[in-house]
């Protein structure tokens, strides 16, 4: 979308994050994805009369961690409220949430877009409980066509943190950058597994378009049902275009909630009956106020890990790596820790970064595994970098060793021995191979002699192949040139 036109897009994002505590928010049922339906439920999360919710201290700690990492103020006093609504995904007919006194207020997240840093304000971070999971039986799975609904309350009561941004986001691209940075931050904090496809990170967006420079916001539309960062970006691009076109055509926009249809690639209005709620919030009488001890808050602050932005700055500075590699390596705690461990074990940082962002990333992609799920360790990487650096194995041999380590997990030294990857740097042994290659390829040899020097690459390739990748390519080239130029 052009940025020099008469209109600008204003976006605010609301993210819900399921915390990775062992138990639920207000009861001791396990907080675990994928259990058989209604097996992680008790009187509290089923809303049985007389049951008493008691907040999980770890969940409060995690919410404070998130607040501190986002530069929020931790409220000296905050309350839980009941958010009343008639929908069977909460058996109590209300959700315990926070309302006018949230736990964390007023922070920010810096994101990078096109090499520029943009500061996105954070309005609030509050704690609540997740809802149960509803299945709508029927042929289409669409709510409106189902005759009845089925409820699984395993997820009801799972600790949920809501992170609300200021309407500071100006494009779909900035929204993607914000979500990517937020996700990396949450991962570094160790408070959630932030898997959008499993619903542990969910996002809704408020979008409006206004005349550039206007103080008033345009008509606000809320978009729901986006389950990947990519679909948030697509939905926002669609919605931005739809609203701009309506403004250009003079069609009035209505304030409404729209549903993102991933397959159709468009947003569709939900009928007003489905979201016309009056939540009648009131203080949860069963839970006394939260007044976190300042000493506890400072203890949590002191325990915060290095955040992705800090880590990127340090990597760029300490290891002299290009920005694109820094983004990949410092993009997740897993990758950053792996890289740093390999460097600690003696690997040259630039070489280690190249192996990780190219060959290792390629293998992981090809086999669709996460780094943590692969057999490759920082020790493998450090050995690989060292052996290639020393010339003990060629880089082709290194790639072969990495693939073998990826598949079997054996040590690089062992793989090199077993597969005979040690470079042949013996002039006599290699000379014999070179002679064979020249004898079999008189054409290319003649081309070289008549001035087409580039053909040497082909001949080196033949030597490498014949030696099973074990030849020292530098030595092979020297021997080839020597023989070709002396007419041998």
């Amino acid at each position, binding site marked *: 979308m052009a940025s020099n036109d008469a209109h600008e897009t204003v976006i605010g994002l609301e993210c819900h994050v399921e915390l990775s505590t062992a138990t639920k928010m207000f009861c001791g049922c396990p907080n675990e994805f994928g259990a058989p339906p209604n097996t992680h439920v008790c*009187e509290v999360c089923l809303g049985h009369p007389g049951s008493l919710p008691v907040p999980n201290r770890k969940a409060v700690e995690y919410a404070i961690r998130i607040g501190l990492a986002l530069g929020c103020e931790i409220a000296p006093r905050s309350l839980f409220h009941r958010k009343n609504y008639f929908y069977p995904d909460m058996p109590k007919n209300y959700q315990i949430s926070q309302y006018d006194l949230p736990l964390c207020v007023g922070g920010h997240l810096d994101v990078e877009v096109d090499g520029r840093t943009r500061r996105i304000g954070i309005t609030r971070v509050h704690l609540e409980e997740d809802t149960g999971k509803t299945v709508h039986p029927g042929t289409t799975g669409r709510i409106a066509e189902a005759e009845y*609904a089925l409820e699984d309350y395993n997820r009801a009561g799972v600790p949920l943190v809501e992170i609300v941004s200021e309407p500071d986001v100006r494009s779909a691209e900035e929204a993607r950058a914000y979500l990517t940075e937020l996700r990396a931050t949450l991962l570094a904090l160790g408070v959630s597994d932030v898997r959008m496809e499993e619903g542990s990170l969910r996002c809704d967006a408020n979008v409006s378009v206004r005349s550039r420079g206007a103080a008033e916001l345009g008509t606000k539309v809320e978009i729901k049902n986006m389950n990947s960062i990519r679909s948030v970006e697509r939905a926002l691009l669609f919605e931005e275009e739809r609203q701009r076109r309506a403004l250009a055509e003079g069609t009035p926009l209505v304030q409404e909630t729209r549903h993102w249809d991933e397959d159709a690639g468009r947003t569709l209005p939900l009928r007003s009956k489905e979201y016309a709620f009056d939540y009648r919030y*009131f203080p949860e009488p069963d839970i006394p106020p939260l007044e976190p001890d300042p000493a506890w808050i400072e203890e949590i602050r002191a325990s915060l890990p290095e955040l992705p932005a800090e880590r990127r700055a340090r990597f760029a500075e300490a290891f002299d790596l290009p920005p694109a590699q820094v983004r990949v390596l410092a993009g997740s705690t897993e990758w950053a820790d792996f890289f740093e461990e390999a460097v600690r074990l003696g690997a040259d940082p630039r070489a280690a970064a190249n192996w990780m962002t190219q060959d290792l990333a390629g293998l992981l992609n090809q086999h669709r595994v996460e780094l943590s799920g692969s057999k490759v360790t920082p020790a493998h990487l450090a050995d690989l970098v060292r052996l290639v650096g020393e010339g003990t194995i060629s880089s082709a041999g290194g790639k072969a060793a990495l693939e073998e380590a990826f598949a079997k997990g054996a040590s690089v030294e062992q793989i090199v021995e077993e597969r005979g990857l040690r470079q042949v740097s013996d002039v006599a042994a290699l000379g014999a191979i070179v002679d064979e290659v020249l004898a079999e390829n008189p054409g290319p040899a003649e081309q070289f002699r008549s001035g087409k020097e580039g053909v040497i690459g082909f001949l080196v390739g033949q030597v490498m192949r014949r030696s099973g990748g074990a030849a020292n390519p530098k030595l092979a080239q020297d021997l080839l040139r020597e023989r070709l130029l002396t007419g041998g």
Partner: protein
Amino acid sequence: MPVEIDIEHVARLARLALTGEEKERLSRQLPDILSHAAKVGEVAAEDVPPTAYAVPRSNVFRADEPDECLPHDAAMAGAPEVEDHRFRVPRIVEME
């Protein structure tokens, strides 16, 4: 203190289908109840901050340690109907 109540709105929020007679009666009774509760305001002094909690407690927490869940059958015992180990409930969207 006179209180205006939109009885139709309140009934809809509570998902109650009231007859005309009930609406008329409750429209008279509800303001009485609210006026009664509002009497608290008459004794509230400047030095008493508003609160939703009668007991001066805060920070009541539990440790993040698992407790026993209900056995599945017991959990489902209160369900109006069960299908596929889930609570079967009426359709959700209100059609009018």
